[in-house]
């Protein structure tokens, strides 16, 4: 068996946020800072889907945003296909796609315009762009709506357009924060099928979710984040230790919470 090629390496990632007076009141704490991510390390390999599993506020989105260079870590580092997220931000951005339910598109524009716009930003050659546009638009059924304004598209179609314009540059790493959040079952299936297709093509996909079945269905390896800390990270089988993912997660969660209370 070939040795897996490490595409993503995360080492000792830490990130804390200053709490406003309002947030302190809301979280019933006098602490000025909240440690969102604490010493998180993991790797992802070529041609695999890696899942970050955790409850709300566990630090999944912060980790994903840090990898996408949207925010900078307080400590630690990460490399995407050899590019450093701290010193080679533009190279990192050209190697990955970052998708999230929060990422929105300008509603005034058409999918066709947005595809061309993001292709230009990523420096995709016009000939390559047209071929890729045709391929992706057909794959997601966007071709019929290519000249319709985003504002007039259904929520599911908007999510497909969002996905397509994020991968105009055919990146090797796709980071997807909560990939099926807010999607109807049909669109959710289209998205999960596409992620599996990307894996087949040798791409590395990192997803974050709190849905156990999604991890079980898609992921080769999983990392469990609780209170900003990686409490388990390995292949799905090794993490589960013979239990279902859900049971294993709650066992880890109770241990982590018990430790926190103690």
């Amino acid at each position: 068996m070939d040795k897996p090629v490490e595409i993503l390496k995360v080492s000792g990632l830490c990130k804390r946020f200053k709490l406003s007076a309002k947030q302190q009141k809301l979280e019933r704490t006098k602490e000025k800072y909240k440690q969102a991510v604490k010493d998180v390390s993991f790797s992802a390999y070529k041609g695999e889907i890696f899942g970050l599993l955790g409850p709300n506020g566990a630090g999944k989105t912060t980790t994903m945003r840090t990898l996408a260079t949207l925010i900078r870590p307080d400590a630690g580092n990460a490399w995407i296909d050899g590019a450093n997220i701290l010193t080679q931000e533009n190279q990192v951005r050209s190697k990955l796609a970052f998708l999230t339910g929060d990422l929105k598109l300008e509603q005034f524009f058409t999918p066709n315009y947005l595809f061309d716009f993001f292709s230009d930003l990523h420096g995709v050659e016009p000939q390559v762009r047209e071929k890729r546009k045709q391929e992706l638009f057909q794959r997601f059924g966007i071709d019929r709506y290519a000249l319709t304004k985003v504002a007039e598209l259904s929520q599911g179609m908007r999510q497909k357009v969002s996905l397509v314009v994020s991968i105009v540059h055919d990146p090797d790493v796709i980071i997807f924060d909560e990939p099926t959040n807010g999607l109807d079952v049909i669109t959710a299936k289209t998205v999960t099928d596409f992620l599996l297709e990307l894996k087949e093509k040798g791409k590395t996909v990192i997803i974050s979710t709190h849905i156990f079945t999604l991890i079980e269905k898609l992921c080769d390896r999983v990392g469990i984040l609780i209170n900003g800390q990686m409490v388990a990270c390995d292949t799905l089988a090794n993490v589960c230790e013979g239990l279902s993912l859900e049971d294993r997660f709650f066992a880890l969660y109770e241990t982590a919470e018990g430790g926190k209370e103690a």
Partner: protein
Amino acid sequence: MKGMLTIFKKELARFFGDRRLAFVTIFLPGILIYTIYSLMGTFVMSDMQADSSLTPVVAVSEVPISLKGTLEQICEILPLEKGQDPQELIDSQEVNAVLLFPENFDVLVEAYEVGKGVAPSVELYCNSSDANSYATNELLCSVLNTYETALVNKFDITQIDTVSAEAASGQFFASILPMLLMTLLYSSCTSVATEAIAGEKERGTIATLLITPVSRSHIALGKILALSLIALLAGASNALGTILSLPKLMGGELTGSIYGLREYALLAAVILSTVLLMVTAISLISTFAKSVKEASTMTAPLMVLVMFLGVIGMAGLGSADNYALYLIPLYNSSQAMTTILSFGDAGLPVLLTVFSNILFTLGGVWLLTKLFHSEKILFKI
């Protein structure tokens, strides 16, 4: 009914819950109007008042003995040489007014019978656009009218204003256009700049841009340039409408054709650099806002400042004698426009204004780039 009341209370709670919105909507307009109108009144009054320590200098030809003593009490009299042009004397500000008495004025007045023949005439020259000349004219008129009344209308007073139509038009444009232009340019800038940055943050589309391999400085610069062009087009349209409508406002007596290519080119340079500066300033402020509405609220004080500076320009308080003042952003634009429109020596002021505006714009763009790197500001985390 209860539902309506609940909605009513919710809307009031929403409005008054946002103290900034309540202040800007309810209190600021009142304060603004009071301040601006008070300042306008003060400036207009001060602009019309002559120098109180002034002893008027009047060039007089053929001073009659009957009035010599009175005139010497109120002004310094210079004899008018033959061939001297009254208009030139006043324009050069060597004298404040010129008084032309006919030869043997006292004899002619004595001989004149009211209602028979042509009454002796006294010509009084002044420049109504100059406060000191205007005040001297008023003073002399008062003396002459008193004397004329005492003699039972035995002579006529002819008043001649030396101000040219071009200077009058220029003075009018200079007093009103800077205020209008500054306000219109600001309105154009604020409508596009708040939307482009705060709007993107509000809609969540800014993150989509930030994860592309385009540097944040380029994103910031691209936005500033596009916004400036749009604001400039909108501002040009507004300005054109204003300039074309001004002659109509004055009953067709004024025309923008009094200005040549030089004035228009200088004005364009000031407007262009001002738009760049305004767009940058509004974009900077908008970056801190979470929504377009919040951005509009946050930029309101800047609007007050722009209007205030426009009013200063309107009052004619030019800074021609202190070139350092042309380095103060926005204030310099208003003052430079006033200088150009009133046919002042505008070369250096415009150069300093454009230089200062571009320098501050570059500083603003640099700061905007820094803000685009701040996750706290861009994502409000």
